[in-house]
């Protein structure tokens, strides 16, 4: 593999996270002083501050919330005196039993697989960075890009609950209520989006340069 030139931070240069302007870092820039981009005013950091600790905290919080999000019902349907609560999984199972398997698959993927996949990838990236792994940095960066892109699609179940609640309120005939599981689920989606934003993919590449010292 051909050696790459040292990264910008080792040449005392910082790329603005917002407008990409290349800025000179002051001597011994250690993140203690706040420097702003002269063009757009964004705060400059050589790496996202406290990236690993913050991402770990968010990932652990999301994992904890993921349990009630899947165990508790997300909505309750009351129709002609009968009451039925649905969790995310039972909602997907209902669709499957009624022959709507593409939809069941979609809901299962967006609501169950995507958040978990995102968390597993982030945990793997965090550990690999902490172990200074030099293994396939390009593929690991690609994994990071996937976590960034897929997270939003988990919101689909929240929107389905919202729309059903708004459409179905016919008193005794049929009413749908949102339940606590949906709150936890919304929290998981929001926290994992923040977790992906806090993780700094440049840390993956830093390990490659440390060994040249």
């Amino acid at each position: 593999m051909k050696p790459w030139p040292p990264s910008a931070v080792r040449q005392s240069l910082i790329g603005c996270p917002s407008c990409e302007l290349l800025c000179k870092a002051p001597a011994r820039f250690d993140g203690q002083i706040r420097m702003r981009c002269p063009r757009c005013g964004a705060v400059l950091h050589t790496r996202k501050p406290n990236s690993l600790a913050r991402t770990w905290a968010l990932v652990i919080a999301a994992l904890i919330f993921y349990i009630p999000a899947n165990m508790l019902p997300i909505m309750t349907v009351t129709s002609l005196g009968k009451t039925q609560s649905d969790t995310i999984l039972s909602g997907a199972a209902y669709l499957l039993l009624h022959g709507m398997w593409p939809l069941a698959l979609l809901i299962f993927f967006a609501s169950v697989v995507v958040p978990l996949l995102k968390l597993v990838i982030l945990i793997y990236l965090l550990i690999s960075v902490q172990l200074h792994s030099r293994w396939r940095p390009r593929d690991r960066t690609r994994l990071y890009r996937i976590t960034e892109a897929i997270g939003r699609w988990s919101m689909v179940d929240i929107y389905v609950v919202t729309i059903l609640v708004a459409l179905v309120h016919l008193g005794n005939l049929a009413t749908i209520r949102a339940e606590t599981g949906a709150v936890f689920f919304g929290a998981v989606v929001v926290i994992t989006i923040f977790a992906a934003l806090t993780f700094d993919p440049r840390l993956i590449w830093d390990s490659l340069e440390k060994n040249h010292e």
Partner: protein
Amino acid sequence: MNQQTRITCHECDLLQQLKPPPPGGCTRCPRCGAVLHRSKRNSLNRTLALSLAGLILFIIANTFPFLAFEMQGQITETQLFTGVTDLYHQGMWGLAALVLFTTIIVPAVQLTLMLYVLVPIKLGRTPGHLAGVFRLLQTLTPWGMMEVFMLGILVSVVKLAGMATIVPGLALWAFGLLIFVLAAAAAALDPHRVWEKVRYAP
């Protein structure tokens, strides 16, 4: 654009000369493969036109009902905003806030600010606080989830189809169009063209 722009990759921090992208293509970081710059012809004009169309569609999508639900002669119609208020009345204010933020506030603010930035530029002026406004626009990007909401509508329709009659409303068509217009506006925008307009002392 300045051919000699030096940048650092936002995903791997590799310092490099930013090469202009081939027509219709994009420049990638040679080390990590991140997209650094995409070729976009007539970027600002196209983004302006699409944002304007987007704002009109957004207003239509929010003023008219997008679905009607009919069961044993009883009909409920729903607008985007009624979903939010119904959640709120059920005591789910957190969910209500999340839905309000991602499907109404963020798209509305994004479209308005985009016009605030692009209309003066089109007229040859520089809008006030351009850098701050454009930075806010970039921060909001991951939180606008109109296309996910559209998918939510489709899923709801299929789910309820067996239970009652679902009648699509005018807003539904506006929604459908809006998704494409928003995606096209995001694809047309070349942020470099906007940042070039910001005057600063290096």
